[in-house]
């Protein structure tokens, strides 16, 4: 990716990277710019509602999600507005209890993957030696596995434990984040302020943290948004396969798997978690799209024709 990744040179140049700004400051500026975009506003609103349901919802559940309150696949009634599931639990109560796992697992796995990928990518770009090549070739190896296959391989061997799935999803994202971080960092490592820090004898790790990291905040924030969307799909998908969250725990992906057999008699058992997952991913992805626009929109006022 030598000199060719200059799709938005004007944007970066206009924002002339100043060595002094911190990552936090950059993130704040970008965040505020993103908040003015309608997509971010809608996306954040949807995300907030879904996260609220996932974490506060359980306290409003009409029944105990583990209590058998009726026959299997019962139709909706006044006390059970979404009917009952494959064993006779209240679908609404299970639904309210089943969002927490997918939300925290997605978030933590992306944070871990982002951190690991950033370290690898920045180190590779800044090393300017064989380490770069070695790191990038090892990311090739992980990238050759489709994400879900990587996760399934290790889950089948070590068992369906939530923390294992979080680590595996993080491991699946790390190489992809590393490539993005490396590409962005390569544009920075040659800049004068990095050289001046080197001349001054600033330690390498400090240059990476203080000089390089703040200037690649934009692409990393975009990565964060997109990866959360994909993590929700991946983690819910693994539970849907039966290889993730195990019963009796409540989980949206698992609910779909359990209630699939009754999809004709009692579609709510499937439709409700399906809608929840869809809304969560739509909300997160719209926010990510707004962030992307804020980052890409950079110094430009309008789209140059």
């Amino acid at each position, binding site marked *: 990716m030598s000199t060719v990744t200059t799709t938005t040179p004007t944007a970066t140049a206009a924002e002339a990277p100043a060595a002094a700004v911190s990552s936090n400051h950059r993130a704040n500026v970008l965040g505020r710019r993103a908040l003015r975009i309608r997509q971010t506003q809608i996306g954040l609103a949807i995300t907030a509602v879904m996260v609220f349901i996932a974490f506060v919802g359980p306290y409003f559940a009409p029944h105990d999600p583990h209590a058998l309150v009726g026959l299997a696949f019962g139709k909706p009634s006044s006390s059970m507005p979404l009917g009952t599931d494959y064993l006779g639990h209240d679908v609404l109560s299970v639904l309210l209890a089943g969002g927490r796992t997918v939300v925290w697992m997605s978030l933590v796995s992306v944070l871990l993957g982002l951190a690991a990928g950033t370290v690898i990518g920045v180190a590779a770009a800044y090393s300017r030696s064989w380490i770069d090549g070695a790191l990038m070739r090892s990311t090739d190896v992980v990238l*050759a596995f489709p994400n879900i296959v990587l996760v399934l*391989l290790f889950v089948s061997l070590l068992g369906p434990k939530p923390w294992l799935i979080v680590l595996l999803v993080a491991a699946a994202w790390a190489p992809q984040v590393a490539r*993005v971080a490396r590409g962005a960092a390569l544009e920075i490592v040659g800049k004068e302020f990095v050289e001046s820090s080197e001349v001054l004898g600033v330690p390498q790790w400090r240059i990476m943290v203080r000089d390089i990291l703040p200037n690649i905040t934009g692409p990393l924030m975009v990565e964060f948004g997109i990866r959360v969307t994909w993590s929700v799909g991946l983690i*819910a998908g693994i539970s849907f396969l039966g290889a993730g969250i195990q019963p009796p725990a409540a989980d949206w992906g698992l609910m779909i798997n359990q209630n699939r057999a009754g999809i*004709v008699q009692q*579609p709510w058992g499937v*439709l409700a978690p399906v809608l929840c997952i869809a809304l969560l991913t739509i909300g*997160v992805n719209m926010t990510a799209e707004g962030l992307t626009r804020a980052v890409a929109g950079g110094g430009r006022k309008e789209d140059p024709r």
Partner: protein
Amino acid sequence: MASESVTNTMAAVPSPSSRRVAAGTSVWGWLARRLLTGVAVLWAVGTLVFIATQALPGDTSTIVLGSTATPQQIAALQQQFGLDRPLLEQYVLWLGHVVTFDFGDSLVAREPVTQLIGQRIGNSLVLVSLSVLISLPLSFLVGLLTAARRDRPLDHGVSTVSLVLASIPDFVKGLLLVLLFATTVFHVFPAVSLIPAGDSALSHPDELVLPVATLVLSVVPYLSRLFRASMIEVLDSEYIQVARLKGLPSRTVLLRHAAPNALVPAVQGAALTLAYLLGGIVLIEFLFGFPGLGAALSEAVNGRDLPVIQAIVLLFAGAYIVFNILADLATVYLTPRLRTELRS
């Protein structure tokens, strides 16, 4: 749509220019090196799979057989996997088997893994190639139309719809299609494929509709963005301005002058799609009970069928590497600039 998200989904397939090699190498030298790295990556993947399945701490035999296994069962299994030998010897033996496509017998189906997979490969190929054959032209058309109507209502409408479609996980899209077309609202297509083992999926076209539609809906939002971006880049170039200034009808400019040049990313696009679909079919085949490789993998995972898991994982990784090399080759072949750079 901002270009970042497009390049982002492309992360696995770098742009052709990033694959530039130092001047002085021939196309053949480049190709040889590309093939060599491909083989090296595949070897590393294989080693990783070996480490995961055989060398990882933990007793493989109890993982496979469960804690209720009899000593005889465990001994038989250890012999089958060669678990009683030193690790290095196991590794060499295992590599030798893998290179000759000998994955042993399935622990569940009690038949050779190659035979089990052989039946499934055809079905997955049908599913994937149908999805690609529909997605590519459709995405190109959508990309062309939205690029030509840039920032008009059509463009905005399509971009909103594709943003929403791209957000929703594939299997959730598939379930929505099932709920809509197979169970509650309409009863047009079967919700679950009932293709007998050994039967080709092509002889059951109605059972292909929903799985293919799901995969198409998953791929088209990304691909059409890709085509829109490449079309816009072409439309902004000088030769198109010249063509417009000559007074050529805009339809001619669009279809004759611009479209062919916007097609080059189709190659990388196709590779990207194929690579994406490798992972995509796992959940979709499971969802529709479609007898392909993806469903075989999830069955093997649930049944802890290690030989089958090993074989399918290696097959997926190998296919991914091959798709990428083919895409690079085709891109170099189609882009005169890259060809010249390689020669000079």
